[in-house]
């Protein structure tokens, strides 16, 4: 072809053609000629592709958020959630790009400075920031660009959410509604009162049993054969000799030290609530200054300590050893010279001044003194090695020869044991552990009859199970469930009778007020008069309160009536005699809550609108 080109095309035409060829090669490289087709994107949004990788990452995040629940969720649902998530992100990205939003470098810095990982003593530390990025092999440029992008991409949504408002008048009105009080009375027709007279015939019981047979089944039960590996078992088998122990002691002598301890006294200026922090700090600073200037002795300062228990003993805390105390306090104490008072230390309790009165240095314990401890440590260390090895080999063999437990048992020198019967939800012995039950009832073990994977019961114990015997769910005989059926039938009938009675009474009180109950043989004292109650009043069942607040407003000196059936079957008559709106000034915090809720809804609607206008193709099968 090139020869032809050379032969036939001369002059400027050849330059043009070569020029045209250069363009695609320069832009896409030769690679795209060899790649063949490209991978299918997870979605396209207005012509822009979202890679399946992005969707996959999102899916992983979602799974992590749901934790163990994710395993029980429909994978298609999860995938669609992930897809929705990345599409929303892409929609926002496009909107933000189109409109030219851009976060400022200051905002990026604020975000980074606010991350705890990059802080030292509560302040951003550049050296720490750089070393953490280095450790994760990320350049600060790339990291900061990522944050800039994230901040920028959220600005459309945030801009809407943060500027949402309700007017002052609306805030007041909502507050009035929220703090409304209603004068509520109620009378309950109790379903239980009817149960005593209800007779249930055998025929009814039989019919009910036949109709609901499927709910009267025993649970599926299984037995498993299993292997247990325990690190402790190997600890007993470890060979021990004097020389070995001595060597172990030498190698690990830093484990056998009595740590340095410091006899310490302190003065506490307690911070009882976060708002009083500055006040406490000022007081502690003043005490410290007085001590430095010799205006006060440490003992005089102790008299003002908020730690009354130690103040009585001159502030003495006893011996401070690493690991027992507030880390800030500990750090300060161990940096302190003998008989010098520390600067105020910020601790969980407030601000403290410390004084070290004696130092007992760290001391090496002799081999003879700790021999028993050394032996235990040595055995554990050796046992752990053996345990890990056996764990590995059992895991491999049980997997490779998944149709039989014996080879794995033989390889690890274990005997196969058998469990008692257990169900998916309860068991004894080995099946007491939910991880074991879950594995035993998994598809692989229960349906395919394979060995389970190695179940890490604890850090030092592993189990492999396989199905030994199985008992399908069985019908429970009528005799076993008769009592339950009688109770259900009685409750059902009582519910009906209570409702009938309640409806009848409701008509009466609507016509003649609560006094009308007398004619039906019910004393008016049985009416529960709750008086003026608020929405969160606990004088009444919350369901009744909610109902009472959804009833119409009564005219002056009138009642509105309604009724409600509770889950227990009780039928409740309700009256509202008066409605009193709240009169309080609108609370700024509550108004903020309303605005935030509204902003959230507005932002979601705006994103939904973007979705409506966009051209979106979804490929849930691509990841």
């Amino acid at each position, binding site marked *: 072809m090139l020869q032809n080109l050379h032969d036939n095309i001369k002059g400027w035409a050849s330059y043009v053609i070569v020029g045209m060829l250069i363009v695609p090669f320069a832009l896409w490289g030769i690679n795209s000629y060899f790649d063949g087709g490209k991978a299918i994107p997870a979605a396209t949004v207005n012509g822009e592709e979202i890679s399946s990788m992005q969707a996959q990452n999102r899916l992983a995040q979602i799974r992590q958020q749901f934790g163990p629940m994710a395993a029980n969720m429909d994978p298609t649902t999860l995938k669609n959630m992930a897809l929705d998530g990345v599409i929303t992100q892409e929609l926002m990205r496009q909107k933000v790009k189109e409109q030219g939003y851009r976060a400022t470098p200051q905002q990026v810095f604020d975000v980074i400075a606010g991350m705890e990982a990059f802080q030292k003593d509560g302040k951003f530390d550049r050296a720490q920031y750089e070393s953490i990025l280095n450790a994760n092999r990320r350049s600060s440029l790339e990291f900061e660009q990522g944050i800039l992008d994230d901040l920028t991409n959220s600005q459309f949504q945030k*801009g809407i959410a943060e500027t949402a408002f309700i007017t002052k008048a609306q805030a007041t009105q909502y507050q009035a509604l929220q703090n409304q009080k209603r004068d509520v009375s109620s009378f309950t027709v109790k379903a239980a009162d009817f149960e005593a007279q209800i007779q249930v015939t055998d025929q009814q019981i039989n019919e009910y049993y036949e109709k609901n047979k499927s709910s009267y089944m025993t649970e599926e039960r299984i037995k498993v054969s299993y292997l247990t590996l325990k690190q402790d078992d190997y600890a007993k088998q470890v060979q021990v000799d004097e020389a070995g122990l001595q060597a172990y002691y030498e190698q690990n002598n830093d484990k056998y030290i009595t740590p340095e301890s410091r006899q310490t006294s302190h003065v506490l200026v307690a911070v009882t609530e976060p708002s009083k922090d500055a006040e406490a700090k000022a007081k502690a600073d003043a005490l410290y200054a007085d001590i430095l200037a010799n205006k006060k002795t440490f003992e005089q300062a102790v008299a003002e300590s908020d730690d009354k228990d130690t103040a009585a003993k001159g502030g003495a805390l006893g011996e401070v050893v690493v690991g027992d105390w507030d880390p800030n306090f500990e750090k300060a104490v161990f940096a302190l010279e003998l008989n010098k008072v520390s600067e105020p230390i910020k601790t969980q309790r407030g601000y403290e001044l410390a004084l070290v009165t004696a130092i007992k240095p760290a001391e090496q314990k002799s081999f003879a003194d700790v021999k028993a401890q050394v032996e235990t440590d040595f055995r554990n260390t050796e046992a752990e090695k053996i345990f890990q090895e056996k764990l590995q080999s059992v895991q491999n063999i049980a997997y490779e020869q998944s149709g039989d437990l014996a080879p794995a048992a033989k390889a690890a020198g274990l005997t196969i044991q058998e469990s008692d019967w257990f169900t998916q939800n309860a068991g004894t012995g080995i099946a007491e552990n939910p991880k074991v039950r879950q594995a035993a009832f998994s598809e692989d073990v229960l349906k395919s009859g394979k060995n389970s994977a190695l179940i890490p019961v604890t850090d030092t114990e592993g189990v492999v199970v396989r199905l030994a015997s199985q008992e399908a769910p069985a019908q429970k005989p009528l005799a076993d469930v008769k009592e339950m059926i009688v109770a259900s039938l009685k409750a059902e009938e009582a519910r009906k009778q209570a409702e009938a009675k309640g409806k009848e009474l409701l008509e009466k009180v609507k016509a003649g007020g609560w006094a009308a109950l007398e004619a039906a043989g019910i004393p008016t004292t049985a009416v529960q008069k709750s008086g003026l109650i608020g929405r969160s009043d606990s004088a009444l069942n919350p369901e009744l309160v909610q109902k009472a607040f959804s009833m119409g407003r009564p005219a002056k000196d009138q009642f509105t009536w309604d009724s409600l059936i509770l889950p227990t079957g009780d039928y409740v008559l309700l009256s509202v005699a008066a409605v009193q709106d709240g009169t309080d000034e609108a609370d700024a915090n509550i108004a903020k809550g309303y605005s935030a809720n509204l902003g959230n809804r507005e932002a979601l609607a*705006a994103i939904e609108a973007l979705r409506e206008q966009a051209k979106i193709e979804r490929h849930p099968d691509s990841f």
Partner: protein
Amino acid sequence: MIEYKSDEEKAEDVKAWWREYGSSVIAAIILAIVGLFGWEYWQKHQVQTTEAAALEYQKLLKTTDKTQSDKLVSELQASYAKTPYAALASLEAAKVAAEQGDLEAAAKALRWVMDNGKDPDLKLVTTLRLARVLLDQNKQDEALKLVDSVSSTAYESLKQELKGDIFVTKNQLNEAREAYKKAIAANQAGGNELIQLKLDNLGQGA
């Protein structure tokens, strides 16, 4: 026909070609370079303008001083109207005014966004906010017209809730109840408590 040319002849050809087209080629290259730098400069300028506007907007969010915030808002509206921050600043100004009960100022700021905003999606949100302010000014009919002008179904819940509020003030309680019910049904964001409260407060009706 095949032509054979000596090297001298070929060099002659190239030179002839260059005499004829050389100046155009150089002009094209210069144009490309100027264009590239121009584009770079334009990009940089855009970023700088946007960042300046974003900075002003950040300042606005932080200040509580009214003179200062008024100044920032009018500056953004005047000099940075092309950036999204002019609209956001106006929305923020409307929020502050409405929360203090200054409906006049809130409406004015919202109308600025309606007239000058560059983002049709932000304008939809603004439309509903303006309707909410107008309702408080007792301009129910104008408010209702604004609500109905938003046709996107994404805003259904917000629209219906506002309609309910409007109907309540017009004492059309049945319409209000219907609207609140639709608002709850269409709400995908959760947090229906307040709408439910407003609905319940109307009672069950006849």
